[in-house]
């Protein structure tokens, strides 16, 4: 019997396999990495400073008590304060630019709901939930960061622990999916 290298020891195949593995693993890691890093925002909005001076979340995200989405402040609201206070900073120059051009600021979404999930802010806020329960402690963030592991299991966990007496309703598929 000739001792030939079996096929899985052929260098070409090994290199190919490693390359494929790298691309696949790299793709997965890269994809996960991109989903887990806060996206780049047009203005590096310092949440920590705004929260730090005592601004209420609802001041800017007023929709949270009323409807499905919390909403983002328009340039008018930003400018309403910032033409009075702290006018100079490189980030505020950007803001001034948007105001001047009368363009909406292209904020990039951070927490995304899949299209088949109907999340509404108002029932949660009305039930007395703190914003930080889901969005993290914004006093420690500059731009908002997506919180980890917010999947359906996480939703259900909270529904179960915070209102066990309404579990029937809060675990009903139609609560979020339609």
């Amino acid at each position: 019997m000739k001792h030939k290298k079996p096929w899985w020891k052929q260098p070409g195949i090994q290199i190919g396999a490693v390359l494929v593995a790298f691309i696949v693993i790299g793709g997965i890691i890269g994809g996960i990495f991109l989903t887990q890093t806060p996206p780049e925002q047009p203005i590096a909005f310092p949440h920590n400073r705004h929260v730090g001076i005592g601004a209420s979340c609802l001041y800017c995200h007023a929709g949270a008590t009323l409807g499905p989405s919390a909403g983002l402040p328009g340039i008018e609201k930003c400018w309403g304060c910032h033409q009075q206070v702290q006018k100079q900073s490189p980030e505020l120059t950007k803001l001034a630019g948007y105001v001047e051009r009368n363009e909406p600021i292209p904020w990039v979404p951070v927490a995304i709901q899949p299209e088949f999930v109907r999340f509404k802010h108002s029932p949660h806020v009305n039930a007395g939930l703190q914003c930080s329960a889901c969005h993290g402690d914004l006093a420690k963030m500059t731009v908002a960061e997506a919180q980890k592991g917010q999947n359906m299991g996480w939703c259900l966990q909270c529904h179960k622990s915070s209102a066990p007496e309404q579990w029937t309703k809060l675990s009903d598929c139609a609560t979020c999916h339609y």
Partner: protein
Amino acid sequence: MAEVSKGIAEKWGLVVDQDRCTGCNACVVACSMENNVPFTGEDNVAFGRGTYWIYNKRMWEGTYPEVAPAFQPVMCQQCGSAPCEPVCPTFAAVHSEEEQINLQIYNRCIGTRYCANNCPYHARQFNFEDPNIPEPMNSYLNPDVTVRRRGVMEKCTFCVQRIVAGRQTASAEDRPLRDGEVTPACVAACPSDALVFGDLSDPNSRVSQMAQNERQYKLMDELGTRPKVTYLKGGGRNGG
């Protein structure tokens, strides 16, 4: 949430008065516009793939000249014991304990189409292809309803998005839901008031009253599916 559990589950029901129904199909279109049901085009309809969550099963009665169409608008009957549910391998078709209706969870659906075979009412529709709605026509799509992609089943939901919205509005205002506050799109549109929607668990609701009409019958009652939709027979010559 602030709402206090009522103890009795809401049981939504629909009554279809066939004597009032003119067969005008306004419900078909209203449903489609509300629920982002895609139009499929002539070829698909000809092939039997027109997607209608509610449609009029028009059969003919009698022969010329005594012939007359028998209109029967049929939508998902939201069966209490639904044949479509247990056969789904992934719990995409489930019974809602809260609303007491059948749910189709699109993202859980893998498209076995078993439920559709097992539905004796043929109320379930399959998305054979992605909806083809050219810009800017997609602007009218209802953001409260998922736009279904190809490969999933869909069906009438009793406009559950309206039920949930109504319930949340009522709870935000700290009051119970009023009778007639929530109406599915078909009921809202029906020009001849042939469709009535409401809470069957409330004996005073209009739908409960009507469901006890002596003309009432359920579609394929013998199958034991316990539909939530009650039909009232047409009046015939001498009324009823």
